[in-house]
């Protein structure tokens, strides 16, 4: 049984800076392709901050993108299979363990996929793509075998 729900509105800031400058914001920087509870690694020198950003000591870019995304949560044992309907990555524990985070695709929508816990998957999707993604995911979940 896989549960799909929408996340409450997000507060997020896109941070781009050299790692040593980013570190001055007071958050532990996540390793590449992972996320901490409040910071998602999106690329080299690029992170998404989920709480209030501090003031960087050095050149950095901080842009409020709170309304850029809508967040979805998939919960349950079959979630990885459901995600693999549209996401071509290997989502098994060995390849995508909990705390993994990446930019990828689901169907024809670009998403950020974050696995905070073994059975919990979070998706951030561009606001205008959310209706497409939700409709597609709902159809996928309808076709998952029960149990």
């Amino acid at each position, binding site marked *: 049984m896989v549960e799909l729900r929408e996340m409450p*509105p997000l507060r997020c800031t896109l941070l781009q800076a050299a790692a040593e400058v980013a570190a001055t914001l007071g958050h532990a920087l996540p390793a590449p392709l992972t996320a901490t509870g409040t910071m998602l690694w999106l690329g080299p020198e690029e992170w998404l901050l989920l709480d209030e950003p501090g003031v960087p000591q050095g050149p950095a870019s901080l842009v409020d993108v709170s309304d850029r995304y809508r967040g979805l949560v998939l919960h349950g044992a079959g979630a990885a299979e459901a995600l693999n309907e549209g996401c071509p990555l290997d989502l098994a524990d060995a*390849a995508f363990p909990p705390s993994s985070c990446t930019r990828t695709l689901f169907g024809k929508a670009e998403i950020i996929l974050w696995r905070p816990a073994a059975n919990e998957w979070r998706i951030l999707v561009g606001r205008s793509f959310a209706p497409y993604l939700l409709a597609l995911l709902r159809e996928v979940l309808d076709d998952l075998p029960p149990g």
Partner: protein
Amino acid sequence: MTRLVSGGRIDRTRPLRFSFDGRGYTGFAGDTLASALLANGVHLVGRSFKYHRPRGILSAGVEEPNALVEIDRGAGRREPNVRATVVPLVEGLVARSQNRWPSLRFDLAAVNGLASAILGAGFYYKTFLGPGRDAWHKRWEPLIRRMAGLGRAPEAPDPDRYANRYTHAEVLVVGAGPAGIAAALQAAASGGRVMLCDEQAEMGGSLLAEPVAWPQLAADLATLRANPRVTLLPRTTAFSYGLQNFVALTQVVEAAGGLRERLWQVRAGRVVLATGALERPIPFSGNDRPGVMLADAARHYARRWGVLPGRNVAALVAHDTGYAAAFALQDAGAAIATVLDMRATAPDDLLAEAAQRGIRVLPGHGIAATRGRQRITGLLAAPRGADGAPDATRATPIACDLLLMAGGWTPSVHLFSQARGQLRWDAGLDAFLPDAAREAVTCVGACAGEGLTPGLPVTQLAAGSARARKAFVDQQNDVTTRDIALAVQEGFRSIEHVKRYTTNGMATDQGKTSNMLGLAVVAGELGRSVPEVGLTTFRAPYTPISFGAFAGRHRGLLFDPIRSAPLHEWATQQGAVFEPVGQWQRARYFPQAGEDMHAAVTRECLAVRNAVGIFDASTLGKIEVTGPDAALFLERCYVNAWQKLGIGRCRYGLLLREDGFILDDGVVGRIAADRFHVTTTTGGAARVLHMLEDYRQTEFPELRVWLTSTTEHWGVIALQGPRARDVLAPLVEGLDWTAFPHMAVAECRVAGVAARLFRVSFSGELGFEVNIPASQAPAVWQALLHAGAAHGITPYGTEAMHVLRAEKGFIIVGQETDGTVTPDDAGLTWLIGKAKPDFIGKRSLSRPEMQRADRRQLVGLVPRDGTTLPDEGAQLIASAGSRVAEGHVTSAYRSAALGHPIALGLLASGRARLGETVLATSLTGPPIPLEVVAPVFLDPKGDRLRG
């Protein structure tokens, strides 16, 4: 009934009713449609493609070229060209034969059989290219279209769903015969993820015809099933093998909820191909009659399905396995009339067993002809002459109701070959076998030649057959040995050319039973060896794949993302008419009761000109450019000068490609010394971001600048019109209106929401664009509507927006530009920062060709008669009858503000031709005379937007 009383893997306690051509029959659980038809004595199941010859069931698997039927599962679920040999029988199955009229038993088109001498190889090419060209369109094509073609495409939409699954496995095993199962067991023991797929509903492959192996088979499958890291996929065909072990499988699911098929896209660490081998048919006259069957298929029908496909059986064998089939049928109760062995001698042990079983064996024999209309009734056995052809003068008639063909074995190397693996010709086994692999792939079992023994070489199998009458090589496309010989005679040497000319192997069975035979006939005619002639390319898909499997869920509303702006819901409630703009749906106009588009757009335009309009501009691309070097970065990319742009000011920016042509445009506002709010066109948002990011990373890595897409973050509401400020001002907090001229930007609050307010105009009127976080856009929109009610605020759509901007001569990238328009062509030279040392495209602009005076330049166009609207895209010509296009109309609208139609166009030397008359071609009437005017129709000085 030809069903055996016992034996086989069918469940005799579970009878299933089905119908074929409207007649009811009964089969059992575990049957295929083919085995159930045979169990009911039905051999005639279809008519051939070209000649409408009666055809039966040749095989017991995917290679079946003949037994193609239509399966009807109700409205929208009618599927043509289904191989009866792979359809598991289910209760209530409805099947129909194809390609026959009025009935399967009496088919008028079989008269074609008389014309078969005309419809030989290359018939279509010859008819199409020859002097009969007119006759082709008028007579032949309509006739052929009526007569030929397999099956009927369904008309209703398919109501089923099709799924996709990307997956990764350490080992993917294709084929669940003995070799595949062994490989899967071995792989599973090593601990990785293992997938085992097989095209049949039951796994086991050749073991399913070996009852002694069944207990072990069941145990092995149970072992695999119990392993959570093993995925077993029956009814799943690996049909495509791509780079880096990317294998596509299609699985028939047929779940109760409507999920019909699933496409698996597998990335495998290692692939094990255990795809087996296919038995070769034998070319002889009348080898396509119902009741002529591959020997091993008959053995499977008897052993696996408990069906005796014939009671009086003859066999034509070129390989030892033919004897095993004959013996198995005898064991099942059939009488074996004769075994004709094409070889001069047969192995002693087989001869001894045949003698012991009382089976007559005639070595060195072939078949001169077969008898029987809708099922074989007999054959003419004849000794083979020196050239291999049967000597009809010494023929002996033999009666039979089933004729087995055992032509030897062709390993299924399709997938290995798709994986760019090299094949080598094994002269001993007389087969192409896998050689050097390019992927991490292993071939095991019969597809690697393991366990195969040599029989009569395929060239000798085909020897002399080119002189036979109606010796079919490709039964699905009705290609005979004579057709292939004719192609060679007519000069075709390459096997690829022969294939295309004769269509041998080009049917939906992809030549599984015909390619090797065709090759052998060509080799014989050319006097070359099989490897010298070479193989045709193996292309995906291995077996026909439904369109549904490819489309998956990407159909209907999910075909492509439909992006909707924050005010989409409101616009929908207002009855807006939408238009697609890329993936976006944008409100085109808001018709009121009784209004057509023209009336609505006229009303919306006049409201903007006379009062105030409100417009959802949220789809505009937005990029936040930040960092100490942000201005320098923009300076290097855009044509404009940016470094001196004041904070709180905006500029219309123009971006070129390296070739100097316009790529995109948009207003750029300076929010802070190190922060710019860049806008792009709706369609160009991603393109511009990618290009700028590319330059940032690869050309200017030394600059401290970053780009962030904010397209989705900001909702944008445009207020345009002389009353715009009156509507907006009461809702704005924190803005000094006295320091907010045209082309200014400020951060403030609008209706209580933190906003970036731009004073910009794309209409020529006093205008503002309110940027607020997208989630707040509906609330701010409502507040503005409320505040604007007293001022006659009017929502307008993209069509009015287009008209308004055209009246001002503002270009739309992609409408006035087409990738060949320079800034000067568009009249935008004034934007270029003259003192700048460089920008993207600058060097290209200095090329002589880019500076020619006769380039096509943006002009305005007004119909001389004051009423006729030219077509967008119409060519501009200098005089009636001229065939020289001097430009084209890029935009054309009826302008309510001006009272006549207006158009923009690109015209050679346009700016030097003001006042001249040019003509716009028309598809429906005479060319339309237009006066060339300056492209700004309204308020050329811009007083209104500074108001």
